């Protein structure tokens, strides 16, 4: 029950001489050698870290925490983010000493349990993707995109093919073009058609012998499954290119259809979305990738293999692109994904997607007569409503509606993405919400739509703060506290 107490900055509540964590006396003699440390190495000034007692530290952060919305406190229909419930058993089990305190460079023989899990996880992700090889190394989805594109580049280099272009639909997430650029490719944008899917007339002429990869999100960021996908992947393959699937929306198709089966050659998972790693207010995530047979040799090293001497990490992969990070991967999040998959099994995974799509379509059915949803046909796990008419008629923007929702205890949908829909409000309820919650949310949305525009422009009215001045933040950036 926070009342603005202890939420000054750590540095403002710091008080000279206070201590929280205290250390034992040193129990070893002062070693000869240590005297030899030259003063030129030693620190000069005090680091200016805050000095805070344990009770104040706890009060500070406990009160801060209550200034957040979160899955555990609020419905969070943030499109493209798959904010599903994070099971508590995952937190308990991933904290076991034999999980949390295993060193990444231990001998394989001393961490067989961990390797068994990671080996199984590779297989699960391969099976769900319908692809042949998996790397668990990437730390998040964007990292997975980059890794896969580096694999593709190595593959073409190996084949001595000079392919420089990556084709990306205009509805794609920003990480796709950004990853392509870092991987050294030129990006070519593909238009969306009136249905919000790939515009074949725009795509076909852009497929050339320079085409390296076509990156597609399917279901796409409008929540639509592009049924042209088989045709598209054929075209790309015929032209000698590879197809990349952005797997951020896998929550819609688990056990229903597999990227490998509809022609994708590479994909990433967002384990922190589809397989419910807690988002941590911005990570950590985990972005493993799955690829088709011909690309397997190029995957990062190591990969877990099973031999008759047990599991081990195979580094002996001469064609591998190498590493994309230090150590094994974001194991802690992979563990949660593993717990989730083992908990649900095949049926359970399929039901996840069935109900994710059911919930989205149900919510859509509740609001579609009240909000303009440009591309509602074939909605999967999410859909994108548009406030463009509201904007015209009542000067109410997508942002206004999002902010007003906060007053009602709902997190806002993803707004202004994808870019192809003006005043976009992207809603993804996920399968872990009830019909009742969706009913109340829909009612609220409709109520808000009919509220006074002024009220909405100034929303939220009941939160910790009102709307922040973002322009000021960017114009005169203040990125740290400074002692006066």
């Amino acid at each position, binding site marked *: 029950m926070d009342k603005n107490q202890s939420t000054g*900055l750590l540095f403002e509540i710091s008080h000279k001489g206070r201590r*929280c964590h*205290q*250390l034992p006396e*040193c129990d*070893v003699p002062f070693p000869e050698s240590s005297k030899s440390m030259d003063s030129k*190495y*030693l620190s000069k000034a005090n*680091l200016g870290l805050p000095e805070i007692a344990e009770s104040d530290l706890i009060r500070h952060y406990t009160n*801060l925490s209550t200034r957040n*919305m*979160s*899955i*555990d406190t609020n419905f969070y229909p943030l499109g493209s983010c798959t904010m599903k419930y994070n099971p508590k*058993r995952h*937190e308990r*089990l991933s904290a076991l000493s*034999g*999980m949390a*305190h*295993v*060193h990444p*460079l231990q001998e394989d023989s*001393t961490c067989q349990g961990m390797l068994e899990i990671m080996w199984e996880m590779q297989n699960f992700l391969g099976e769900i993707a319908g692809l042949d090889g998996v790397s668990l190394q990437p*730390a*998040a989805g*964007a*990292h997975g995109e*980059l890794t896969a594109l580096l694999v593709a580049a190595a593959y073409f280099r190996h084949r001595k093919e000079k392919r420089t272009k990556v084709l990306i639909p205009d509805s794609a*997430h*920003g990480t796709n*073009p950004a990853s392509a650029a870092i991987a*050294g*490719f030129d990006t070519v944008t593909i238009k969306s058609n009136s249905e919000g899917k790939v515009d074949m007339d725009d795509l076909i002429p852009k497929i050339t012998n320079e085409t390296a990869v076509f990156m597609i999100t399917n279901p796409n960021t409008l929540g639509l499954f592009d049924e042209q996908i088989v045709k598209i992947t054929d075209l790309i393959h015929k032209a000698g290119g590879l197809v990349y699937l952005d797997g951020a929306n896998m929550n819609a198709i*688990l056990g*229903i259809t597999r990227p490998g089966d509809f022609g994708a050659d590479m994909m990433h998972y967002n384990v922190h979305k589809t397989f419910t790693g807690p988002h*941590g*207010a*911005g990570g*950590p995530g*985990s972005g493993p990738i799955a690829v088709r047979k011909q690309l397997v040799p190029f995957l990062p090293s190591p990969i877990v293999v099973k031999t008759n001497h047990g599991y081990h990490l195979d580094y002996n992969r001469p064609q591998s692109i190498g*590493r*994309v990070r*230090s150590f094994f991967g974001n194991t*802690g999040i992979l563990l949660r994904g593993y717990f989730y998959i*083992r908990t649900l099994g095949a049926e359970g*995974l*399929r039901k996840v997607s069935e109900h994710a*799509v059911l919930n989205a*379509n149900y919510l859509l059915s509740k609001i579609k007569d009240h909000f303009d949803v440009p591309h509602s046909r074939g909605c999967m796990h999410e859909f994108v409503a548009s406030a463009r008419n509201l904007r015209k008629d009542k000067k109410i923007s997508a942002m206004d509606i999002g902010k007003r929702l906060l007053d009602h205890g709902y997190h*806002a949908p993803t707004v202004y993405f994808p870019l192809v829909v003006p005043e976009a409000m992207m809603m993804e309820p996920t399968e*872990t919400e*009830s019909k009742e919650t969706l009913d109340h949310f829909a009612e609220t949305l409709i109520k808000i739509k009919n509220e006074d525009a002024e009220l909405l422009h*100034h929303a939220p009215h009941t939160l*910790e*703060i*009102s709307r*922040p001045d973002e322009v000021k933040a*960017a114009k005169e950036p203040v990125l740290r*506290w400074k002692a006066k």
Partner: protein
Amino acid sequence: MSYLLNTQEDEIQMLKSIGIKNIEDLFAHIPESVRMKRLLDIPAPMSEMELTRHVGRLAASNLNADNAVCFLGGGSYDHFIPAVVDTISGRSEFYTAYTPYQAEASQGSLQAFFEFQTLIAQLSGMDISNASLYEAGSALGEAILMAMSLTGRSAKVLVADTVHPEYKLSFSTFLANLEPKIETVASKNGKVCLKDLESKLDEGTCCFIIQHPNFFGNLEDVDEIARLVHSKGALFVSTYDPISLGILKTPGDYGCDIAVAEGQCLGNPMNFGGPYLGLLSCREEFVRKIPGRLVGQTVDRNGKRCWVLTLQTREQHIRREKATSNICTNQGLFALRAAVYLAALGPKGLQETAELCFRKAHFAAELLCKIPGVTLKFNQPFFKEFTLELPCPASHIIHSLADDGFLAGLDLARWFDGMKNSILIAVTEKRTRSEIERFAAAFAAAVENSKSKGKNASYKS
């Protein structure tokens, strides 16, 4: 097992509202040809009780820093994690929130990240920090991209061969298809050879990357390096050990331009390699080139101080292929943990921790070097980690000490041929005198044993 809420009755009503007969209809537009006709090949579901038993069994089979005594480091360290860190990062509102896009509903995390940025800037002695990157290896990749666009140089990147091999592998992959070629600066007696550095630095060099203390545990001649690097207009990128700054001078102190670090040691468990925490801090004037999230201070409509994600025009969701980086989800929760850790230690706590590491490491080194045939490979000043030369393969020692309940150290043969007999040992503040003494005794026995074995049979490790 499932986490679904809606029952069959709910389903029926929902389908009615949607206007379809059954759930399959929801997927009608997926081409029949690519729809799955079978169930996924995934093991049967497990209840919480079964899962708990299953995972408990697997966990128990792993040697770890709780059931063994850990002297293994090499970028991941067994430092003590105060309970407050777990308590705070265990608050639902922190760990089940998404990236704070809606500032009004995220002031808790935004303020915490603003404090994190300040703490890392203070710690590293730099002007500003971002809100975290994945981990040190990829963070160095980001630092190089930054350096390229800051210097406008893209011909050459120099890196000390005393930098963590996995970091080098990581950013090399990262740059594989970009212009710059990566050249390694040789080392001499376990630290950067200044001559070699000087000879390789040129007008095309965008930056030189070191690690300090370096991978072998040794301290580098940071001042001389800074001078040389800057004399050629290149940027100086240093990878530091955050704990070491309890006694060592900061990257800021020695003229580093972009400071990178692995933040695992700041209150984060070793987690078999991740999630970890990439730290990147730099000079103020680099602000618009910095990769990743940035939290900035501003005011709300009523003039109340508050925090928002800012300078997003650098980022992928606005800039797309022109973004400074492709990063989106970063390491929020671990940044929070690091902030809590640093706040919990405070200046004295960090200093005491660093001193304990330093003294215990040196105590351990002295004891181990009393073992016949065991010597320090380099006679350089070191902090909490050091390299030993053994009279036998390191792998033998590591295997036999594992049976004695020790994670003995790192076999350098993993990356360096010709270092078959070299082991890298880390000693943190957690190690007690008696653990170190038991370790030295077991180590001596293992060496004895291996030498004798070595005589008759000369088996491969």
